[in-house]
C-alpha cells in the first residue's frame, strides 16, 4: 500500500515585532577571563623576560628591552648541540614509531588474528603504570645493557612513550574509514596493498598526520626519559633548560629558550586541535 503524500501548506508566520533574545554568555566570559589569566600570564611573563636586557625589582616592566640575550643564547654551542640532538632524536623516534606502529594499527583495525583484542588492550593498559617508576625499571635494565647515556638508549625509551598514541589514534582513524570504500576499490580491480595506499591511508591521513605531529612534539619535549637515560652525555633541549633553571645562570637564557621552544608546540596546536578536541581522542584514554 502506498502512503499518501501529505503536503503541508507552508503557513505564513504572523509578523511579531522581534526582540533581541540573544543573551550574553557571562559565565563563559568569566571562565575565559579566569583561564586567560591563569594560562596566558605565566607565558607572557616569560616572553617579556626574553626581550628584557635589564629588569630589576620592583619595576613592573623591564628597564631596557633588546635582543642582546638572544645573541648570547644563540651563540652558546651547547644550545645548538642540544637543538640538533633534539631534532635528530625526535625525527628518529617519530619515523621509527610510524614505521612500526602504522602497519600494526592497520592490522588491529582491519585484520582478524588470534589475540587481537588482548594485544590491543595491553597497549591501552600501558597507561596503568606510573610512568616514572616504569622508566626507572627500564633504566635499570638499560644499565646492564650499556644503553644508558647513549643516543639509541634515549631513542628506545622515547619510542615507548609514543607507542600508545601512535597505535590507538591510527587504529581509530582506520576503523573510521568506510569499509564499503575499500570494497569498492577492490571491486575496481585494486589488490589489498593498492587499496591500503590509494584508499585507506589517504582517508585516514589527516588524523594520522595529527598523531605523528603530536608524537614529534611530544618527543621533542620529553624530559624524563631523556634525563634519566641520557644523562650525562645526551643532553636534549628540555634537559638543557633544566640545567639552566637549576644553575640560575642568566635568567634570560631560559626565557629565550622557552620562546624558541614554544614555536613547535604552536604548530602542533594549530594542526592537531581538531583531533585533540574530538571526543574520540579522550576516549582513547579510557573514558
Amino acid at each position, binding site marked *: 500500500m502506498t502512503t499518501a503524500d501529505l503536503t503541508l501548506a507552508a503557513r505564513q508566520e504572523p509578523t511579531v515585532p522581534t526582540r533581541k533574545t540573544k543573551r550574553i554568555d557571562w559565565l*563563559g566570559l568569566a571562565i*575565559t577571563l579566569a583561564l586567560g589569566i591563569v*594560562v596566558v*600570564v*605565566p607565558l607572557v611573563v*616569560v616572553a617579556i623576560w626574553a626581550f628584557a636586557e635589564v629588569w630589576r*625589582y*620592583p*619595576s*613592573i616592566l623591564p628597564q631596557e628591552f633588546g635582543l642582546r640575550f638572544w645573541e648570547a643564547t644563540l651563540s652558546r654551542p651547547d644550545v645548538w648541540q642540544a637543538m640538533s640532538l633534539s631534532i635528530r632524536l625526535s625525527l628518529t623516534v617519530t619515523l621509527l614509531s610510524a614505521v612500526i606502529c602504522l602497519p*600494526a594499527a592497520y*592490522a588491529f583495525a582491519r*585484520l*582478524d*588474528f*588470534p589475540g587481537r*583484542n588482548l*594485544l*590491543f*588492550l595491553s*597497549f*591501552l*593498559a600501558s597507561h*596503568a*603504570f*606510573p*610512568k*616514572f*617508576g*616504569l622508566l*626507572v625499571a627500564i*633504566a635499570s*635494565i638499560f644499565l646492564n645493557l650499556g644503553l644508558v647515556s647513549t643516543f639509541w638508549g634515549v631513542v628506545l*625509551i622515547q619510542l*615507548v612513550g609514543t*607507542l600508545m598514541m601512535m*597505535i590507538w589514534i591510527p587504529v581509530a582513524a582506520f576503523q573510521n574509514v568506510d569499509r564499503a570504500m575499500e570494497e569498492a576499490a577492490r571491486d575496481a580491480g585494486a589488490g589489498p596493498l593498492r587499496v591500503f595506499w590509494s584508499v585507506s591511508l589517504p582517508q585516514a591521513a589527516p588524523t594520522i598526520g595529527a598523531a605523528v605531529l603530536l608524537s614529534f*612534539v611530544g618527543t*621533542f619535549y620529553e*624530559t*624524563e626519559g631523556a*634525563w634519566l637515560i641520557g*644523562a650525562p652525555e645526551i643532553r636534549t633541549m*628540555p634537559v638543557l633548560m*633544566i640545567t639552566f*633553571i637549576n644553575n640560575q645562570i642568566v*635568567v634570560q637564557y*631560559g626565557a629565550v629558550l*622557552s620562546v624558541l621552544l*614554544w614555536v613547535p*608546540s604552536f604548530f602542533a*596546536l594549530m594542526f592537531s586541535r581538531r583531533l*585533540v*578536541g574530538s*571526543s574520540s581522542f*579522550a*576516549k582513547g*584514554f*579510557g*573514558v
Partner: protein
Amino acid sequence: MTHTSSSGTVRKGGTAKRNGRGLTGLLLVSAPVALLGWLIIYPIFNAVARTLFTAGDEGLHFSLDTYQRFFTDGYALNNLWLTLWVTAVCAACLMAICLPLALYLRFAKSRVAAVVQGLALFPMFVPSVILAYALIRTIGPNGGVDLVLNAVGLPKINSPYLTPWGPVIGLVWDNIPLTTLMLVAGLGGVSDNAVEAARDAGARRFALLRYIILPQIGNAMLVVLSFTVLGIFSAFTLPYVLGPASPEMMGPFMQRTFSQLSDSRMAVTQAVITFAICACFGAFYVRSIAKNREARR
C-alpha cells in the same frame, strides 16, 4: 603468551586462507608488541624479581632487605607521604576546576565556548619544562605576581616555589587539558534529551547535576581520577624543578637514587613501591577500558 580467540568470524572452509590472514596480522603487530613486551612488561616483572631476590653465596634467595630499608628510613617515608599528599591535593583541585569547566563546555552553545575550549586545551601544548620556568618567573620570589602586588602597594605573596604547593600548582596547570577533555567525553554520554526531559520535569541546575548528570558520569569520573593519580604520583619534571629539595616527591627521589647514588636496586624498589600503591588505580583503569571496549562492540 596467551592467545584468546577473538570474537571475529570463524568460518568453515577456506581455513587455509584465514590462517594466512591471521599470520599477516600477527606479523604486522609483532614489532610494537615485541617493544611492548621488552620495554614495559619485562621491566615490570624484572623489577619485582630483582628487588625480591638477591644473589647470595649459594645462588638466588628471597630477601626483602631493600623494602625494609625503605620502610624504616624516615626520609623515604616522608617522601612517600609528601607524594601522597600532593597527589591527593592535585586530584581534588583538578576535579574542582575541571568538572565545572567540562560541564560548561558540554552544555554551552555560545561562541565563547570555543574560546574556552581553546584556552583549556592550551596547556597541553606547553612542555612542562617551559611551564616550570614560567611559573618560577611568575609566582617565584620577586616574580610577576610580586611585581604587580608591589606596584599596587600590597605585600608580596608567600611564594610556593620550592614548597609542596609549587608542584601542586604546576601539576594542576599541566593536567587541566586532559582531565577536562576526558570529563567532556564522559559527559558526551549524557544525552541532551535526558537533560531537556529533566528540565521539562522542573529540575533546576543543582538537581540536574545531582540526579541526572553525576549518576551517569560516575564511572567516567573514576576513570579520570585513576588516570590523573597515575600521572601525578610519579611525575618528575615539575616536582624536580618546582618542589622542595627535602622531603622530595617520589619522582625526583627515584631519579636521585638511580643517577646520583647509583643505587639502581634501591631505585627499582622505590619504583615497585609506586607500582604497588598505584595498583588499585591501575587495575580499575584497565578494567574500565576493557569494559568500554566490550560495550562498544
